[in-house]
């Protein structure tokens, strides 16, 4: 034991003071950083290194607590008058009067100790105190002494109760009389036989304890609904309040299965209630609560923390919500940090959004581009033509990534009103990637109006001046219409000659060769043979590759 008698005060006091400071700093760090942050584990390691060194050099450290001081022996090693951040008062207020760290303290134990003292009592601690946290950890090398007066409800109760319980004792003659009567009494007692506990009993007990380790929430949720069988109508509100609280607890603790169980029971409540309609009406509050931003926000936190829930349970949960949940889900979409969590919410919105496209469309005005892009992706998954009007509006979004997603979505609504004009408009987008995407979207449609737009663009003014790759994109999609009209058009382009803009014209001809090759147009072979030796390297190269593709059936790009 570390005492001041065995060494000079300065030798011990300073290291003890420093160690207390280490614990204080660790407490702050652990409150500040999440457990998976490297700083968190480094803090514990550092504190352990310091405490281990101290205990090895000086032996056990026994600290005494007063309201504003910590003492080692009779020397003050910590003092603070602070009301908020007072390490002495932190222990003192809950009744801790002595705290001893014993040699042999392990890193794990110290880590647990630091976690206990860094518990956020203000946020979660209405029902906790430091003594309970230390008690639960049952440390081997950290001991504490508590002032039990702290617990006394009524200081004189014990004396009063003892006096009352003892009452008057039987005096000597009375006791003798009783004794005499007892001796005359016949023995009629039949004590139970005490069979010793066997291995089979222990085995059964083990199974029992195993069964007991499962969550108690399903039982509680079932129980709360049983209340309706016993409750008066006046108690319905209170019962549903309890069910709602239980539901919130299920979500908080990540027990989505029990939460789903509550929703399922709420939609099919017990038939024995006195006023089923009133009960159902009250239970609607649960559904509203399940869809509320508060609950959906909690779900998001759970998802972000890595709790992804079983897929079927999550889907079942979402299936039980109504369209009022859409805004709540949209609002967390932008907050989630992990991809997996976002995927789950997107899938939920694909289901819920289908019930209320208008509500989902409100997400298009979100200031975060990625939220808007996600909404468009969700529209695409929903596949309802009703979303087109919103997609068309979103096609003018300022962020190119959003516009790109819009085009992907629009491309899947072939033949629907409003799609073609939007795609045509996108062909004039300032971003080349968007323009090319619009071309591809038109190509995927394979419809006559789409072809018409492509051809009219190719024939339009200024097309020749576009970048070669963009021009090539138009000709590539043109191959999606392997018709005589297309062949003739391409052959015309292939044969085009000009004294002006020679290289640009050669680019056009190369694109036509490329397209004919993709179509496998054998009728073009003669022309291509002539052009494979053309002076223009691009044209000769594309002509040669088109011949090969036509002759050997090679796929584009090979």
């Amino acid at each position, binding site marked *: 034991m570390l005492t001041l008698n065995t060494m000079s005060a300065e030798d011990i006091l300073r290291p003890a003071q420093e160690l207390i400071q280490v614990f204080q700093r660790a407490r702050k760090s652990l409150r500040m950083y999440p457990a998976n942050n490297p700083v968190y584990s480094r803090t514990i390691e550092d504190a352990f290194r310091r405490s281990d060194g101290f205990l090895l050099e000086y032996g056990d450290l026994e600290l005494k607590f007063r309201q504003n001081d910590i003492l080692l022996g009779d020397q003050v090693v910590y003092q603070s008058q602070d009301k908020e951040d007072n390490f002495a008062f932190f222990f003192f207020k809950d009744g801790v009067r002595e705290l001893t760290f014993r040699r042999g303290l392990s890193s794990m134990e110290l880590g647990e100790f630091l976690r206990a003292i860094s518990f956020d009592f203000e946020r979660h601690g209405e029902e906790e105190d430091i003594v309970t946290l230390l008690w639960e950890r049952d440390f081997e090398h950290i001991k504490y002494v508590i002032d039990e007066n702290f617990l006394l409800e009524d200081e004189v109760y*014990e004396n009063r109760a003892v006096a009352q319980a003892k009452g008057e004792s039987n005096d000597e003659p009375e006791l003798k009389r009783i004794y005499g009567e007892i001796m005359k009494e016949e023995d009629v007692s039949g004590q139970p036989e005490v069979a010793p*506990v066997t291995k089979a009993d222990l085995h059964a007990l083990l199974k029992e304890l195993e069964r007991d380790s499962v969550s108690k929430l399903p039982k509680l949720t079932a129980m709360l609904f049983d209340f309706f069988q016993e409750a008066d109508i006046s108690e319905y509100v209170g019962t549903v309040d309890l069910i709602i609280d239980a539901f919130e607890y299920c979500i908080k603790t990540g027990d989505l299965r029990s939460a789903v169980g509550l929703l399922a029971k709420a939609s099919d409540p017990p038939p024995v209630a006195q006023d089923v309609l009133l009960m159902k009406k009250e239970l609607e509050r649960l559904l509203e609560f399940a869809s509320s931003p508060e609950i959906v926000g909690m779900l998001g936190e759970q998802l972000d923390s890595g709790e992804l829930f079983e897929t079927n349970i999550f889907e079942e949960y979402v299936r039980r919500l109504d369209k009022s949940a859409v805004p709540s889900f949209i609002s967390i979409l932008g907050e989630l940090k992990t991809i997996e969590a976002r995927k789950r919410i997107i899938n939920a919105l694909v289901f819920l959004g289908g019930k209320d496209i208008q509500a989902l469309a409100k997400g298009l005005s979100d200031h975060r581009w990625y939220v808007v892009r996600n909404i468009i992706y969700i529209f695409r998954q929903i596949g309802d033509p009703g979303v087109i009007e919103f997609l068309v509006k979103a096609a003018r979004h300022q962020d190119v990534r959003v516009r790109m997603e819009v085009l992907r979505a629009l491309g899947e609504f072939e033949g629907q009103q409003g799609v073609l004009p939007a795609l045509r408009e996108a062909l004039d987008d300032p971003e080349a990637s968007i323009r090319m995407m619009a071309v591809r979207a038109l190509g995927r449609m394979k419809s006559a109006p789409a072809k018409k737009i492509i051809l009219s663009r190719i024939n339009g003014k200024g097309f020749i001046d576009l970048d070669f790759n963009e021009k090539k994109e138009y000709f590539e999609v043109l191959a999606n219409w392997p018709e005589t009209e297309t062949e003739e058009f391409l052959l015309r382009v292939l044969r085009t000659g000009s004294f002006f803009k020679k290289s640009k014209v050669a680019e056009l001809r190369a694109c036509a060769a490329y397209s004919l090759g993709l179509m496998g147009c054998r009728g073009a072979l003669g022309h291509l043979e002539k052009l494979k030796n053309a002076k223009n390297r691009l044209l000769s190269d594309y002509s040669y590759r088109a011949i090969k593709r036509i002759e050997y059936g090679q796929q584009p790009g090979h």
Partner: protein
Amino acid sequence: MDSSLDISRLSREIVSQLAVIVRTSQLHDPRNIAVATSIEKFVSGANVLILEESSMEIEIVGEYFYLNGERVKFTMEHLLNFDFLQREFKKRALGSIKFMCEVSTADMQEFLTVFTSCQFSAEPFEDLTLKIEGLRCISVGRLRRISEQSDIDMRKTVKRTYFNAVSFTRGVMNKIKVGERISMKKAKRVVETMVDTLLDKEEFLLGMTVIKNYDEYTFHHSVNVSIISVALGQRLGLDRKSLMELGLVALFHDIGKTLIPNEILNKPTAFDEQDWKVMTRHPLSGVKLIFQMKSFDSASVRAAIVAYEHHIHPDGSGYPGVKPIAELDLFSRIVAIADQYDAMTSSRIYARTPMTPDKALALMVKRISSQLDPLLMKFFINLAGTYPVGTLVVLDTMELGIVFSANQSDNSRPKVKVITGPGGNRIESWVADLTEKNAAGGYLRSIRKTVDHNKYGINLAEYFL
């Protein structure tokens, strides 16, 4: 000390392995190859500790083993071994075995041969001491009695813990009645203290449950049920945290009764149908009150389940009369046992004459399966013993006594507080251990019969406080 060493686990394993080798040595010669392998296992574990701590002493104090002064906390898997070893120690009046240096398999073989042979000796401890003199590493110590003074100090602590818990419960229930908030922090601390006291001084705290108070029945009953439940939970091998949770839920199991009007609770005549209807709603009220007192967490969920289920029986009877519940919660079944036992042995409005502890236990045995869980009841009967604490007994010495605590090594031979001499004259009460034998090997005292203390107006509190 090597900080990576899990001393608690190692200690448990050493004591448990000692039980294994003692048991096998009673069946086979310790030099037998099968026994030798077990001995080697013990030796290797023991030497780890001896090397770390330079010596190792296994000591029995009260009902617990201590290893180098630290209490060895057993888990359920070691329960039988610990019980067995305790009996073997006590048979030989052996209090401790000390290993002063590294021990070898040969040392242990020799020790076990002597240990086994001396069990039938008239003076087993002396015999054992004499015969192991040649072993340089091993010495033994006689079984110590807990001194009278420390007994008195313990009793003071236990009394304080008990009455503080009752006073707290009284405060809680009164506060609930007037709609005040209660401190769950304090509730936890009260139960933590009870659990600690029970783990250290089980017999004393269990003894307090025989104190009944008619006027404050509800408060005493809540605390008694909590204590009995925790004691049973400990026998089941629950860890400290679970014991605290069990103690807490048991303390609040009847909280719903605070909403029952006093006219019904204190009605001296039989309940009519309406009274029963109100009475049988207390489990539901309990659930609601628990969630008013405490936010949702694992403890409040459990407390609500127990408050709801503690009057539902395994056969589906009981109340509240809802559809059959698939399986009652483990804590509900534990609390139901404690609740019935304490209620039957207490004087209440609707049962003014309480049963004697042994009669209550006998009646509970009849209710096994229908009302009470068979497995848990088996552990409870082992906890209570053939003669539960508080049973008034006549000894074959014609002395009158009250069962003071159960005896783990022999259920039918508890410790008895002797309150009269052989002629019925009042004496300064003292505790007799009914496992004690005379020089000829016969028991010094045995129970001749049990008597109803209520019938004769003997106040147990006089002897337990």
